[in-house]
């Protein structure tokens, strides 16, 4: 004990001596810091929003000096800034602080103090969707400004099995905050079960009404508004090779009959008019059901289309049969499709899209949605969109339904009502957000404030077609109960193999549709 005390004593003496020596050193008028004017703005802020803290730092000495200015929040040093101030000068020093949690925070810089209040809380907005790869990257690019601005974050789970996962999570009481559904069917079911948040409760509805055509708002309304649409796509697109058409003197048809006449002429010219390709693994057949839907809408109109989709008319209805047969006319007319029905059945829908652009073209036209652009661009990176490849709107069958178009759009729905989710949905619905992805490409907004200039030539065509559509209907098979959709896919494959059995095939689909009750 004694020795420790002794050592301590010696240490203290040493310190005292050194201290004396240091203070005794003659330094005339050293740099000296004083701080004043602490300002905290705003003093009330939402979680995740930035608070700016400013202070005036002055050097009252006669020499230039560098000073460390520490910002303490609730007594802990948050950040230290180093400033160099000339003699007898002053400068503003600001700090930006984001707090994710609500509460009152005290701010101290040297002897100055203030406070600010944070309301709410930021969180991670959990989003469930089907995207992955480039699509997800683009979506994340679209979300990035929101994340920076709010300090919030998005957690995205991408799955091909969206419906199954969503159903499970909802049933388990653990839904995501937001889901981006590939069609409105599931939204209607979920809304009926009371699972969805009323978006009109927090969205600025004047802005929404101004930016979205009534049709889109109607589609998203299940009383109340539960869905915002984005990333729409037209399916009324017939892809062709404009240069080849020019060279052959072909004119883009605007009616079904013109299209058939053109097809016959092509056959006479030794050109296969159509590429049809319906292979898609376990989902084989869907490209053909898109054909049928498009034909149906143009032939029978929106009301009958809805009745068909909602199974208010049977599958054996003449309208359905006629749509099948018109499709059959394309595939089964000898010479129309390379390889005929077998060719259509055995060719993958991606590969089928390439035929108009090979040299010489393997076929002149290919019907499939606007996303086909991506397949073509990937296969033929040298081709110029709009010049080397383009689409024309699906031709009119019955003049009273001219301008009809089928398509798809993703619908954003929310399951949890919290500030972060609100802010997320608000952001997603804005033209500012959607323009980001539109500019990257592969995204057509239904927000009319998104400038057409944001798009590429082809996308602008789509955007125009969609906004100008007299009748817009969602892809028919996507809206049917899964069992009926599967039966529809399988039925169209069967029809192509055994066209003579059409009545029986439709009766089989009808039986399944009837069983869905």
């Amino acid at each position, binding site marked *: 004990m004694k020795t420790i005390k002794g050592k301590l004593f010696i240490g203290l003496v040493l310190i005292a001596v050194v201290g004396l020596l240091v203070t005794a050193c003659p330094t005339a008028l050293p740099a000296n810091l004083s701080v004043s004017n602490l300002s905290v703005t705003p003093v009330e802020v939402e979680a995740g929003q930035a608070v700016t803290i400013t202070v005036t730092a002055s050097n009252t000495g006669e020499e230039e000096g560098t000073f460390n200015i520490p910002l303490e929040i609730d007594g802990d040093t948050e950040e230290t800034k180093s400033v160099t101030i000339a003699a007898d000068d002053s400068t503003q020093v600001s700090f930006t602080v984001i707090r994710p949690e609500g509460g009152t925070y005290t701010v101290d810089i040297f002897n100055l103090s203030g406070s600010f209040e944070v309301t709410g809380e930021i969180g991670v907005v959990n989003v469930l969707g089907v995207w992955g790869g480039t699509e997800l990257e683009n979506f994340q690019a679209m979300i990035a400004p929101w994340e920076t601005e709010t300090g919030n974050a998005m957690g995205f789970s991408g799955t091909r099995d969206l419906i199954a996962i969503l159903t499970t999570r909802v049933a388990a009481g653990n839904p995501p905050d937001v889901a981006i559904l590939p069609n409105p069917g599931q939204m209607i079911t979920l809304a009926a079960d009371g699972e969805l948040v009323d978006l009109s409760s927090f969205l600025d509805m004047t802005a929404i009404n101004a930016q979205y055509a009534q049709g889109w708002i109607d589609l998203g309304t299940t009383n109340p508004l539960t869905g915002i649409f984005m990333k729409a796509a037209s399916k009324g697109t017939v892809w062709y090779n404009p240069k080849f058409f020019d060279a052959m003197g072909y004119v883009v048809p605007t009616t079904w009959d013109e299209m058939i006449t053109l097809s016959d002429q092509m056959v006479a010219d030794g050109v296969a008019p159509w590429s049809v390709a319906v292979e898609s*693994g*376990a*989902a*084989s*057949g869907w490209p053909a059901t898109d054909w049928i839907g498009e034909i149906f809408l143009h032939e029978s109109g929106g009301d009958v289309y809805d009745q068909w989709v909602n199974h208010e008319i049977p599958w054996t209805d003449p309208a359905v049969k006629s749509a099948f047969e018109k499709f059959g006319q394309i595939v089964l007319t000898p010479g129309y499709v*390379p*390889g*005929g029905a*077998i*060719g259509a*059945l*055995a*060719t993958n829908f991606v590969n089928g899209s390439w035929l108009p652009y090979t040299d010489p073209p*393997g076929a002149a036209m290919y019907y499939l949605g606007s996303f086909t652009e991506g397949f073509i661009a990937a296969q033929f990176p040298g081709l110029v969109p709009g010049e080397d490849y383009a689409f024309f709107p699906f031709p009119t069958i019955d003049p009273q339904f001219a301008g009809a178009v089928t398509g798809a759009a993703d619908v954003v729905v929310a399951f949890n009502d919290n500030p972060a989710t609100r802010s997320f949905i608000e952001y997603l619905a804005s033209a500012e957000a959607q323009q980001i992805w539109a500019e990257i490409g592969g995204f057509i907004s239904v927000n009319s404030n998104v400038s057409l200039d944001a798009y590429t030539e082809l996308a602008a065509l789509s955007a125009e077609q969609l906004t100008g559509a007299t009748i817009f209907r969602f892809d028919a098979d996507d809206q049917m109960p*899964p*069992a009926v959709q*599967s*039966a529809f896919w*399988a039925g169209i*494959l069967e029809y192509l*193999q055994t066209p003579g059995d059409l009545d029986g095939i439709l009766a089989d689909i009808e039986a*399944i549709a009837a*069983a869905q009750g």
Partner: protein
Amino acid sequence: MPAFLFVTVFLIYPVIDTLRISFFNRNSTEFIGLDNYEYVFTNSTAQSALLNNVLWLVLFTVLAVGLGLLFAVLSGRVRYEAMAKAAVFIPMAISFVAAAVIWRFMYAYAPEGFTQIGLINAAGTGVGLEPIAWLVEHPLPYTDVTLPGPLHTNNFALVAVGVWMWTGFAMVILSAGLKGISTDILEAARVDGAGEWQIFRRIILPVLSPTIAVVATTLVIQALKKFDMVWVMTAGNFETDVVATLMFKQMFNFSDFGRAAALAVVLLAAILPIMLISIRRFRAQEET
């Protein structure tokens, strides 16, 4: 006791429940008697699936065992036995997805006049044959003859992939069996006056028969529950459905639990006796 509980919970209960569901309607709310079984045995899609399974059962098993035996016998005689065997066994070892990629490429089809990327069609058109959509078409290749029922080209094409994948398994097991036959008895048979074929027919085959039975049983069960291959290659389209794929579709595409359960019961009923026989054979073998 825990074993009993385990068996009850994980085996007996699901089986009984499946049986129960099979007598109920699509969402198990209403008892409908044998309607689901009527569907299984009278609906044309279901019938075609059943017949396809029969085709798998016979063709797949016979070919895989037969070729496995052939390779087992031949590989024992070539110089690079290990390499030859590895080549036959590799399909078994690679993942099914990889195999599907390979075979979709093998079978790939393009209409006449287009470049054939599929190996078989490239070869076929190379010698002047028309291209065949192997996974789609029904008529026998290069003919207009369409055989009834499961005897369709696309079914044969699928079975061929199955055989390709499972021959290695059969070969490895049978080859081990062959190695187990003492060379003395083969030499004794040679001295006794048997030729190569007679040695094979009258000595190797009978001595190997328990092994062949084991392999065949495994393959028969494989054939009965065949799913992956069909699902990935054709998804059961173009009348290539087998019971397992149809069951999957009834369950997940058509949400008809009753029919799915009935199909499962039928499948189980087909597999059960084979399992019992092989278990009994196994026991008998252990006793001696």
